[in-house]
């Protein structure tokens, strides 16, 4: 299950990209590529345990749903 705050966008926050990139709806910004691995729960990472942004927002927002899944971990 990926982070419910994760979406992939080509533009937001005054920035635009050729390829859709990981965007955090809670922080309202594109996330660093390393953090995107947490958002996607890759490599045994778990956004619900490993992401301080999720933890700061989840209780207030009552999130439990799946987010948009990015690519797999074998690129």
């Amino acid at each position: 299950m990926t982070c419910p705050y994760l979406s992939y966008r080509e533009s937001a926050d005054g920035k635009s990209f050729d390829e859709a990139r990981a965007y955090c709806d809670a922080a309202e910004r594109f996330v660093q590529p390393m953090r995107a691995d947490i958002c996607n729960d890759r490599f045994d990472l778990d956004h619900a345990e490993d992401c301080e942004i999720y933890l700061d927002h989840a209780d207030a927002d009552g999130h439990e749903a799946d987010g948009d899944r990015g690519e797999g971990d074998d690129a």
Partner: protein
Amino acid sequence: MSYERFLADEPVVVTAALTGGIHGKEASPNLPETPEEIGQAAGEVEAAGASVVHVHARRDNGERAFSTERFQAIDEAIRRYTDDVVIQHTTGATQAPTEKRHLSLRTDPPPEMASLDMGPLNRYDRLTSENTLATVDALYDEMADRGIKPELEVFNDGHLNEVHGLLERRELTEPVYATLIFGPGTLTRPRPANFLNAVDNLPEGALFNTLGFGRHQLPFATMGILFGGNVRVGLEDNVYYREGELAESNAQLVERVVGIAEDLGREVADTSQARDVLGL
């Protein structure tokens, strides 16, 4: 003492860390991510005076990639754009499985150099790049089998002990080459006294590379030049040229440090000299 290398006019090796594995184009649109962009950046930094390029791999959307095929594509692009630059692959991969960290060593041909993180460091609030002794030894052994020179990454003073420990466990080809890293968090606190202390605690005969993160990139590169070391700059470690002004390119950061070296009277190594210095 390293200052003697400055007095002896030893050439300084400039490494450009082009991409990194943490931030991407969300931090700077000038940071190269695709193989083509990385290859082009490598050509620009070589022309500016860098003799080594430190390489991470990314997917097309900027996220981290570890496959041998992706590193192969990047190397092929680098070779198209450069004359003779030394390619140095990362083996860092915070929280990724250890087996993925070996994949960058398996390109054909293998990279001439690869990074070897000497111990743990924290990332964000809840991640740690573990770098156990077993991981360090396994990565080193594959590098040795493939004829790859390790660049020992010393993130803090504890990792200096680990360099000495590695030399007790393994027979490294001389010269031992260590990158002293300064910045926030787990890194050595970026202060001149800590830089001198780190240099003093390297093994006898070891060469060092100097890496300051963020605003510390320029002053620590300058100290590295003055004290007989080598320097690493690039958008992996710092996306700004000066406060509030993004660097236009990796080459712009290389050009500045090359100018400082020349002003201080130190020759900047070309790729042939760099191979001599590093024992490649």
